[in-house]
């Protein structure tokens, strides 16, 4: 087991170097002088230009620059935003809980709907319900979620006036960020309506972000269940006279969950991709919107830091999934 963990962890190193290289060259590959690009169309006076070149270390050889960059990254120094002058890491830390909160809600939503739907579809194979679930999940899988968000706004916010259009909470409430997770913070606060307002703001973004994972989970659960239901031990359970409900929920589901758990782990990348779009639509103050805004403000340190940090998060989650998978399933760790 230790050997498995060590091999798997050592595989992370090239990926780490790759992500830092990507982030490092992000600023340097922009055509033209990076400082002038960041300064935009207004231009920049030569003294400040030289100063900034020194500050960013652009006057040193490229390998030395990379070495300095890596050193800084390992010390947690990701530079400062050009627009706000705040530390990139600090900004990321304030905004990341909003993204996590949204992503967690989305994955829970996807699981709550996707698991039962996939299970039922497998049990009632080839029924209308099965075809319906498969059809809908294929549509969900093909969904341009940036459009889906607008359509949901059109339906629920404009037609029925049920949900707010954007933001995390009504401007009426001011919640002291203690955990950064607004659902928890608003519950802890004295304001009674705050929690409800936070929930109402979460509904649409959760559905939008959860749609693609929901489709994937439903499809995966169905096919995993179908495979397991054909196994001998299920036949044995049937022969023993166990109830159908017990066979499906206890015997079959437990084994069918293994591939499903892996798929959920792999959805992290999909979730962050979706979060960028969802946050843009709903003006959700998370890291996705922060990075998109950074592109248009030419705030390259923010973009660079964001790419690095998000890349690290996805890398770590993938590693964790692999390790847990190896823990649950001994076949995996002996294969390597």
């Amino acid at each position, binding site marked *: 087991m230790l050997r498995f963990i060590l091999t798997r962890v050592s595989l992370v190193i090239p*990926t780490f170097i790759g992500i830092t290289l990507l982030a490092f060259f992000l600023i340097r590959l922009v055509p033209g002088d990076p400082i002038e690009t960041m300064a935009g169309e207004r231009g920049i006076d030569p003294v400040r230009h030289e100063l900034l070149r020194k500050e960013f270390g652009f006057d040193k050889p490229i390998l030395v620059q990379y070495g300095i960059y890596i050193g800084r990254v390992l010390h947690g120094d990701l530079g400062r935003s050009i627009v706000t002058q705040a530390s990139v890491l600090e900004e990321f830390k304030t905004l990341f809980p909003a993204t996590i909160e949204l992503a967690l809600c989305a994955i829970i939503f996807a699981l709550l709907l996707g698991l039962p739907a996939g299970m039922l579809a497998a049990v009632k194979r080839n029924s209308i319900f099965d075809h319906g679930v498969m059809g809908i999940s294929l549509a969900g899988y093909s969904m341009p979620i940036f459009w889906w968000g607008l359509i949901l706004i059109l339906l629920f916010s404009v037609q029925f006036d049920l949900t707010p259009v954007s933001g995390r909470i009504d401007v009426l409430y001011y919640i002291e960020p203690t955990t950064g997770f607004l659902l928890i913070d608003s519950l802890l606060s004295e304001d009674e309506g705050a929690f409800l307002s936070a929930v109402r703001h979460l509904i649409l973004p959760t559905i939008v972000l959860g749609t693609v994972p929901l489709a994937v989970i439903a499809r995966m659960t169905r096919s995993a269940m179908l495979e397991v239901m054909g196994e001998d031990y299920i036949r044995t359970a049937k022969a023993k006279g166990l109830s159908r409900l017990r066979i499906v929920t206890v015997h079959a589901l437990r084994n069918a969950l293994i591939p499903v758990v892996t798929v959920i782990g792999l959805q992290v990348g999909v979730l962050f991709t979706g979060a960028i779009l969802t946050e843009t639509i709903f003006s959700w103050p998370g890291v996705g919107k922060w990075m998109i805004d950074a592109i248009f403000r030419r705030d390259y340190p923010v973009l660079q830091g964001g790419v690095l940090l998000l890349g690290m998060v996805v890398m770590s989650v993938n590693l964790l999934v692999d390790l847990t998978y190896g823990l649950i399933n001994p076949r995996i760790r002996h294969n390597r």
Partner: protein
Amino acid sequence: MTAEIMETPAVAAPTSQPPHPLREFWGYFAANKGAVAGLVVIVFVVLTAVFANVLAPHSPYLTDTTIALQPPFWQEGGSLTYPLGTDPIGRDMLSRLIYGSRLSLLIGFFVVVLSILIGTVLGLVAGYVRGVTEIFIMRLMDIILTMPSLLLAIVVVAILGPGLMNSMLAVALVILPHYVRLARAAVITETSKDYVTAARVSGAGPIRLMFKEVLPNCMAPLIVQASLGISTAILDAAALGFLGLGAQPPSPEWGTMLADAREFVLRAWWVVTFPGLAILLTVLAFNLLGDGLRDALDPKLKR
């Protein structure tokens, strides 16, 4: 020499004619109703794209602010002159959608062809040369796969600058690893087979071995992946367009149209509904086609 033996192959006359491979393939494919439906939609979109200048009632670029935000014909205030209404600066929605199909198909095919070309070459090299080259190529692909796809595409566009061409290059890079992996895996399994050894013995060089012998035999998974790749390409390019990083206005690219229409979501449902519906249907069609192709081409699934 061995070549002399190879020149007199003993061909046994087949006793009963097997069905033509294409006919057999169609038999399996046509049994899948979803795949056929997908194919029909794709043919429809392709025809729309080809005959866009004949089909479109108006110019997709001509603005006329006197008729801005006209609703579709079935709503009050709408007219059949502009069947699906007009956008905020008075361009005909239907005509823009029709011309948009050209862009989306162009994006889909260009991106997939580009990544197949580069991906197969990289995969063939990795699988044939092995050693350090293989490790380098495959680790690079793993890194690309680790990054959230849209994030990577955004980074590339941030470096190259927004635009249709750059967004296509970005998406091509994002879907590249799938083709590299497929091609490499296929090469490794195929090169150990007898027919490759036979070709090698008869003096075929590595290039000929790769492209004339091995490649045709690993086409099936590549075709399936290509169909699914087109749908990813269209979706991701539209997402970039929506974020303002892809095709730039006034281009009638569907994602860009959505970005333009976003602020009018509260006033005019048709300017946001139709472009997204077009994206959804096209992407869905390519996904259905891909699923159908996989079922029809994968011998393991044939009963």
